[in-house]
Structure formats: structure tokens, C-alpha cells
């Protein structure tokens, strides 16, 4: 007898002159399911592409579908991945930071310069490697703070501020060591990028943990939700009492610190800090590509870590396949770029209207 009743006592409130539209109580489960389906679909939008790439990779080389190859992809992608987390956070608040690629190079350079002896072009302070890691994090935080203050408090254009910062930081990176590369890094400093537990690279474990924690933070933490509100509509967030400026500056700081951690991984992986690391390699294009392919909107307020991670994995697999297929170095960039464009298009098709740019 009661089975046909509306699930809640508030039903009369819903039967209002508005009529015709689903009552708040009754429709909610369906709507939630619908909402969930849509977001799940969007999050796994890249899954078919990833599966396709794995099939292609297996066909290209017997060495592709092996644990050691996947571990290699993981190790190579984890530094990029950590930077992508930082950039995604900054994109979510409706900002952008080009200088993450320079922080990625400068932070480990400053730290390494303080660690290694004068003979190896170091500063001669022979700093403790653990303190070196703190210095690295501090460099990231300071760069992020300067960016955040200039953009948020100084109300300067984020694109130009971080473009200028990119070049300044890259200049510092070469300037302090007179364009030399620093080798012989202390093992504690290189551990994060170089070590493995069994077949599993430590950098991969750390990157995965960072992705998961950031994803949970964005979904289930008060400040994580504030980030979506600030990026979605800063004026509305402000009217709701959210400290918009503080959230934004905080995210710039965290983003740069993550870039510095990514830089530490890279330095460990190649056992050196070169003048080329970051800006010289132009990693910012890959960073933006991974985030955007993964569905993080350049306009702010939309995107999540599952998407960003799948973007990173996609780029990692593509470059691995190009390696294994022994594509000539002269052609590798053209193919790499074309694949990224194709993946963007595919993500747009699968992701539906929400991934479309405004007409």
C-alpha cells in the first residue's frame, strides 16, 4: 500500500503550481545515477584510446607488453604526472602557469648546486641531501607564491606573468652553474627518481599516491570543493564567503611545489641536473596536453584526477611505442604532436558537450 508513495514526507511541497516536473524526492536517485553515468563516462573517455594504443604497442614490438616496459613507462611518466597534477589544480581555479616547466628545472638545480662539491660545479656548501630536498620544496613554494601574488593581488595576466617567470627561472637555472650539468648527486637526493622496490619504481608509487590523494582531496575536502567553486564562478564563490584570493594563491604555491617534486624525480631518473631540464626540453606542452586530453578545462572549474592521470598515461604509452617502433628521431616530434591532436579530438568526441569549446 505504501509502495507507491513518494519516498519522503515533503512530497506535497513538490506538488506545486510549477507542476509537471519531477518531484525533488522521487527523481533524485535516477538523477544521481544519470549524473554518475555521465561523469564516469567522461572519466573513462580515454579508455578505448588507451586500449587501442596497447594493442598497437603489442603489435609493434614483443618488448611492449612486459612488466619491465610498463615499469619503464611508469618511471618516465611519473615526473610529468606530478607536474600535471600541479597544473591541473591551477587550471581548476581558472588560472594557468607556464613557469612550472622552469620550476621543474630550477628547483632541483638550486638544491643540487648546494649539495655537490665545487669541483663538480657546486657551490661548495656541501649541504645535507635531506636539507637539499627541503630547499627544493622551498624554491617551488617561493616561485608559486610570487606568481600567485603577482596574478591575484597584483591582478596581472597569468599568461604573461608566468611566461616572464619561465624565462627568468630558466636563466637562473643556467646562470648559477654557468650552464654546466651537475652529476654525482647524493643517493638520498636521487632516491625518489632512481630507486625501485622490486620492479616498481619508487617515483611511480609516489606519483600514484599524489594522484589519488589529490583526487580524494578535490572530491571530498572542503578546500577541494572551494577550488571547483572558485574556478567555476569566482564572484559566486566570493559571495558565498569563500576566500577566493587565498584559495588561488594557495593553489599556485602547491602547483609549483609539485613541479619541484617532479623535477626531483627527473633529476634522480637521469642521475643529473642539466641546464636543459624543464624549460630546455619544453615539457610544458606535454603538461598542458595531458591535462586537456584528460578533460581538465582551460577555463577553470572542470576536470578531475582520473582524467588527468589517463592523459599522462596516454602520452607515456605513445612515446614508448614511438621508441619501440624505432621511429627516426627526425620524425618523432611530428608524430608525437599528431597523436596528441588526435587524442584531443577523440576525447572531445567521447566526452560530449562539456568538453566542447564555446562557439
Amino acid at each position, binding site marked *: 500500500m505504501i509502495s507507491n508513495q513518494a519516498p519522503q514526507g*515533503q512530497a506535497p*511541497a*513538490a506538488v*506545486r*503550481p*510549477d*507542476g*509537471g*516536473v*519531477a*518531484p*525533488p524526492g522521487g*527523481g*533524485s*536517485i*535516477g*538523477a*544521481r545515477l544519470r*549524473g554518475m553515468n555521465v561523469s564516469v563516462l567522461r572519466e573513462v573517455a580515454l579508455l578505448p584510446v588507451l586500449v587501442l594504443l596497447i594493442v598497437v604497442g603489442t603489435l609493434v614490438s614483443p618488448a611492449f607488453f612486459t612488466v619491465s616496459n610498463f615499469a619503464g613507462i611508469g618511471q618516465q611518466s611519473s615526473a610529468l604526472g606530478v607536474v600535471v597534477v600541479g597544473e591541473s589544480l591551477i587550471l581548476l581555479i581558472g588560472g594557468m602557469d607556464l613557469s612550472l616547466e622552469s620550476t621543474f628545472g630550477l628547483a632541483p638545480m638550486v638544491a643540487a648546486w648546494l649539495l655537490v662539491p665545487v669541483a663538480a660545479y657546486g657551490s661548495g656548501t656541501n649541504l645535507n641531501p635531506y636539507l637539499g630536498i627541503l630547499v627544493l620544496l622551498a624554491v617551488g613554494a617561493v616561485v608559486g607564491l610570487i606568481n600567485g601574488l603577482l596574478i591575484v593581488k597584483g591582478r596581472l595576466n597569468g599568461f604573461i606573468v608566468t611566461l616572464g617567470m619561465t624565462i627568468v627561472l630558466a636563466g637562473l637555472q643556467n646562470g648559477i652553474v654557468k650552464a654546466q650539468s651537475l652529476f654525482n648527486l647524493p643517493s638520498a637526493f636521487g632516491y625518489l627518481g632512481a630507486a625501485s622496490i622490486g620492479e616498481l619504481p619508487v617515483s611511480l608509487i609516489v606519483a600514484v599516491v599524489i594522484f589519488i590523494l589529490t583526487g580524494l582531496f578535490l*572530491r*571530498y*575536502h*572542503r*578546500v577541494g*570543493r*572551494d577550488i*571547483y*567553486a572558485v574556478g*567555476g*564562478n569566482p*564572484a*559566486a*564563490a*566570493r*559571495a*558565498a*564567503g*569563500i*576566500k577566493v584570493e587565498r584559495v588561488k594563491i594557495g593553489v599556485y604555491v602547491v602547483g609549483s611545489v609539485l613541479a619541484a617534486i617532479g623535477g626531483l624525480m627527473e633529476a634522480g631518473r637521469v642521475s643529473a641536473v642539466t641546464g636543459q631540464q624543464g624549460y630546455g626540453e619544453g615539457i610544458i606542452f606535454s603538461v598542458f596536453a595531458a591535462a586537456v586530453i584528460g578533460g581538465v578545462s582551460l577555463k577553470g*572549474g*572542470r576536470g578531475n584526477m582520473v582524467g588527468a592521470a589517463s592523459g599522462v598515461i596516454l602520452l607515456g604509452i605513445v612515446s614508448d611505442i614511438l621508441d619501440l617502433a624505432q621511429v627516426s628521431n627526425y620524425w618523432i616530434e611530428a608524430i608525437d604532436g599528431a597523436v596528441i591532436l588526435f587524442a584531443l579530438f577523440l576525447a572531445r568526441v567521447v566526452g560530449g558537450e*562539456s568538453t566542447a569549446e564555446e562557439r
Partner: protein
Amino acid sequence: MTSSAVSSGAGSPNTGPSSAGALVEVTGVEKRFGTTRALRGVDLSIDAGQCLGLVGRNGAGKSTLVSILSGLSEPDTGTVRFGGAPAPRVGDIGRWREWIATVFQHSMIVPHLSVAENVFLGALPSMLGPSGAGPSVVSWRAMRRRTRDIMGEWGLDIAPETPCRELSVEQLQVVEIARALARGARCVLLDEPTAALERQAIRRLFDRVRQLTAAGVAVLYISHHLEEVFEIGQDVAVLRDGELVLAAPTARLSKDDLVAAMVGGIAAPAAEARAAPAAAANAPAPGEAVLAVDGLTSDSARGRLAGVSLRVRAGEVVGVTGLLSAGVATIGRVIAGVEAPDGGEVRLRGRRVPPGQRAAAQRAGIGYIPEDRRAEGFVAHLGVAENTTMAITRELSGRFGVLAPRRRAVAAAPFTARLSLVSSGPGQPVAELSGGNQQKVTVARTLAHRPSLIVAITPTRGVDVASKELLLSSLASVAAAGGAGVLLCSDELSDLVICDRVLVLVRGEVFTEFSNPPFDRDALILATEGITGMTDEAVREEGE
């Protein structure tokens, strides 16, 4: 003009077109969005020289009908005919505009371009002819001359070279009307044209509409303000739940008839709203001043303030009204901490509220219902529950700031239920809701943090009659039962029925105060124009 201009589709959906010579004719139009039937067999026709009013609650299908008539979306079934011939293909905006042009609620003007460029946007006059210049080369001279001609012909007076960013809201609307006429449209659709206009500007708009209809242009006038429809429309059509439920000459209808048609005979909220101020009067005697504002000055672009002081006591609803430029919105924004004043101070329960810091003002207990809900009221792609609880995430979150989506939904439910918010669930993005329901989200967000003072700026703008009364009565009841003070800043006089007192601002100063409800509408209007009770002695007494 002699034939019945409107054919009702509600009772007899299969009746053929009743007026063969109709300029615009809509027959049996249906439109679905997912499971929602936005329009259910609407028949409507407009004759040359006719002004037809179109009213309906939010979500009744007005916007859908506007977008179909504007050639922006295609009906699922049914036809649109212009002058007896089938309408152009949907998307062929150029040809569509030769018949019908829409002046939308939200300005479609490119601010950095000149008036002339905006008038001819998308159809810039080109240099053709013996000089040999190519067809795509813009003729600035022709553009300016033709803009001047159109402006002159219709008595609109704006120089073609003026950049549109320098124009007032009223002038922008004039440019949009000129754009419609420039394409030779014989029917102009005005969607909520008075929403942002002052009284004098509304007069001038009506004069223009009359001039247009006298010259044979058909006008479809869409508005929430029923008195405007009575004044300007010869006929009125009412949409409810996607059906055309009433269509008749305005002369034969009363305002109550219209309201009844719009809400479908259930007019309960009206009684509720009238009961609310009475309840407020019965409440225990108002206590201490919750809000004390002294000597606020501001040079805000939204209207300057020249030393405004006021008090709001617990349980009291105080209205602030005046012309748009009088500083009505500014005082609300300053008190809410969205704008910093140049001078003066705001005290809440005796404690000074830091100026220009919204978060601090909210923590002190000041709720804020913004004037423009799209700009400040909600985050469009986030859900109803998340928007409703946006101001209380700190209370809802557990240890380490963890905030479960379920807790948000549970916390939001009482507020959305109280405001009869219609949505498909707590997760539905606010962007998908109708305007009235979006406004309810904005109000619910404020009620949720249990403020001791609510600053509501024009809380009923663009909201239908029934939702309007519900929103106002909910504000009144928060004051009566919850003991919060409410400061209602509005230039819509009908909002002020819930107020215990009304201050009238003129050019940033408190001009006079009315303290005995119900307030005399005419005296209020005179006061906003800066005229004290020449006709009514009571007004002068209030002013003391």
C-alpha cells in the same frame, strides 16, 4: 487588427489558423528536452501592428518559445510561418532576421564596437558598385549613414560612432531595437525589456513600442510585470507548463485573471505572503539594532553614496529603494562586504564589520542575496546541494576538512524544500534549472548559514509571480520567526510589501522614510523622484 489576433491552442489544439493574414503564425508547436515537455502544442499568431503580451511563470516554456521564434532552435513538431509562407530553415539566421528579431534579456551587444557596427553586426554594408571595390570590403560611410537614418526614422538618438561600452542600459536596448529594424524585421520580440530600466526609461520604451506598432511592426512583449503587459499589449497570451492556457484582449481581463491563468488556479502563495508581515507584527517587540550603519560614502559605479546611516532591528524587514542610480544596490553590496566603502562604518550587533571583505562579513553573520544571480548567485555546473551548502562547508566538514557529498545533500534538503525548489535531485547542475529555481538556490545558500542579517538586493528580479511571493514571504518569515534582520534593497516597489519600514534613497542620500505599512505606491514613486508628499501629507510626516 480586426481579426482575433490570438488563437488559443489549449482547449482546441486542432483549430486551424484563425487569422489568415497573420505576420507570424505558430501552429501546434511541441518541444521536448529529455523527459520534459517544454511546449505542448502551442498555437499563436501575431498581426502587423499588434503588441501581444506573453506571460507565464519561470519554466512555463517562454524561453523555449522565444528561441523557436528567434530561429535558434527547431520545434519537434508544428510549424512557424511568416506572412503565410513557411519560415526559413533553422540556423539561417540572416533570412530569419528579415522577419523577426529578438531583443534578448541579456545584452547581445559587442561593447568594444561602435553603435553602427553593432546595428549591422553580421551584415555590415559592403562597398559594391562601379568603384570596383570588392563585395567584402566594409563601407563605413554607408554603415554610419544608414544607422543615422534608422535612428532618425524611429526617433532614436544615438551617434553611430559611439563605442557601445559608453552607453547606458537603455541606450544599449535602443541599439538592439535599431539592429532589429535594420534587417527590415517586421516583428520584434522583446524579452523582459524593462528588467534593468528605470521608470522614466520604461516610459520612453513604451513610447517607442507604440511608435513601432503604429508603423505596422508587430511586437511580442514578454514580461513578468503584468501591469506593463496591461499597459502596452492589446492582447495577452499566457503559457503554463508548456501550454497556451489563455489568450484574450487585455481589455477583457483583470490582473487576477492573469495570475490565476499563470498559476493554474492555485494562488495560495499570495495569501502566504500577505500573512507574513502580519506574523512579523505579532512577533515579540523588535529588539536591539542588529545592524547599525553610519555615514557610508562610496563612489561606486553602481550608484554613489553620500553619507547613508540606517538601523535594522532583530525581526525587522527594512526596505531601501530608489532609482537605479540612487545607490540602492551599492548600500547592499557595501553592507554585505562585497564592495568597500570610501567612508563610514558597518556594525553588526555592536561589532565593527571589516569593510570590503565578504568572507569576514559572512562570518560576522551577514547573508547576501546578490542582485545578479548569474554573476554571483551560483556556480552553474555544480549541483543544487553543493551550491546551497557553499557557505557552510566549514560546519559540514568533519575532521581534516573532509566533506562527504551525502552530508551536503542532507544539509541542503530542508532549505530547498522550504523554498519549493524544483529540481531532479541534489546533484542536478544549477545551470539546468529555470530562472526562478536558480534564484531559490541563491536564497537557500544564504538561509543555510543562518545569518543574523540578510542583505537581499532585488531578490525577485526576473522571477515569476508565484516564486516572487514565495521568496519574499520566506525572507519575511526568517525575520519574524528566526529573529534575523532583513535589509531589502530593491528598485521594484512590489518587493516592499514585506517591509516594516522603507527608506528612499535619492542620489545617495536617505531622502525620506516610510514607517507605516502598507505603503502608498504613488507616494513611494514620488519620493524616489525626490518629491515629498505634495499630494499626501502623511508622506511629509514620515519624512521627519
